[in-house]
């Protein structure tokens, strides 16, 4: 038998607050498996009808961008004004476009 881990793994919790909205990260918790993580998430994060759907992801499976590379990572989009509608001119009188 494999050795039992000391602590239950950590899970990130995502809640959909209502139909039509996406799941949003609300926090984390520890649980032995996914089923328990969902049950625990219901018990702490949806105590006042905050959600209708829960996702849990084991924290070790979340891969993130590096905050120290925030500049090189995201700056390239800062000078691309032509990606926004206001960059383009339309004659007066066409109304809303």
């Amino acid at each position, binding site marked *: 038998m494999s050795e039992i881990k000391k602590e239950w793994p950590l899970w990130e919790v995502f809640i959909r607050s209502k139909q039509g909205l996406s799941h949003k990260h609300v926090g984390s918790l520890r649980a032995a498996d996914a089923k328990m993580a969902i049950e625990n998430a219901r018990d702490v994060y949806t105590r*006042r009808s905050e959600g209708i759907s829960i996702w849990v992801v084991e924290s070790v499976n979340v891969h993130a961008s590096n905050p120290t590379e925030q500049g090189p990572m995201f700056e390239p989009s800062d000078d691309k004004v032509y990606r926004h509608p206001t960059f383009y001119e339309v004659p007066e009188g066409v109304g809303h476009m």
Partner: protein
Amino acid sequence: MFNFVAMQVENDVKQMEEQFQAKIDADIRIEPRDWMPEKYRKTLIRQMSQHAHSEVVGMLPEANWITRAPSLRRKVALLAKVQDEAGHGLYLYSACETLGADREETIDDLHSGKAKYSSIFNYPTITWADIGAIGWLVDGAAIVNQVALQKTSYGPYARAMVKICKEESFHQRQGYEIITVLANGTPAQKAMAQDALNRWWWPSLMMFGPTDADSPNTQQSMAWRIKRHTNDELRQMFIDATVKQAEVAGLTIPDKDLKWNEERGHYDFGEIDWEEFYNVIKGNGPCNKQRIEARRKAKEEGMWVREAAMAYAEKQKSKVKAA
């Protein structure tokens, strides 16, 4: 050569510290993986874990009355409140983990006495009115502190505070309702409410910690915006808000020096017994031993459940793999 490298590193750290402080000054939140001074991380872990421990230990004096609540209405309210506090503990332990603190170690530090928790929870709940006084005063004081912390500089801490504050609002109201109903009841019930106020008032004021003159770390914590107000400022806010509530309930705050100061625009109040405060912090309050013992027992006696759940989870996982 070595010295040159060391100097270079020192300069880099200094520069990063300056950038960090500039972010704080601009009210930009710090997130878990951002660079931060080691002392900022340590101070935060200490403050957040103390806060977490207080939520968890705080369940004990109130849980004492769940089975003896005088009506079903009171019982469901108290049960829901105590469950909320367990959640608050969880949010805060999770926030500590985002800074690399080990959950189990954090909890063991509480059990070994290395970590502190709010001194207020070392007082006993000897009558039902104490449950009212705790909700009204203890949660009331906690709310003043936590509302301020919603703007704290560390993202996960601030977000936990926003959620906690939403949940806290009913805690104080249910406590105040208990107190006002007793205060308007029979003379014996009114006396019970007054007695609870007499015993919980001063310890509630101590919850904000030592006076500013005696809290040397406040300045750094304010600069880092880990704290947004000093202990004395928060204490004054709480007193100013609570005096009227006592009046409406028809109860007397046990402080003969309590008086509105027109010039300051605040209530003046009497001297806090700091000797008592430090004594309770040191472990000599009426219930310190009992509280830690209860926490330790819960951890030890729940061990087999946690192990069994983990063993079951691993077994299920290997079954899925085999299939």
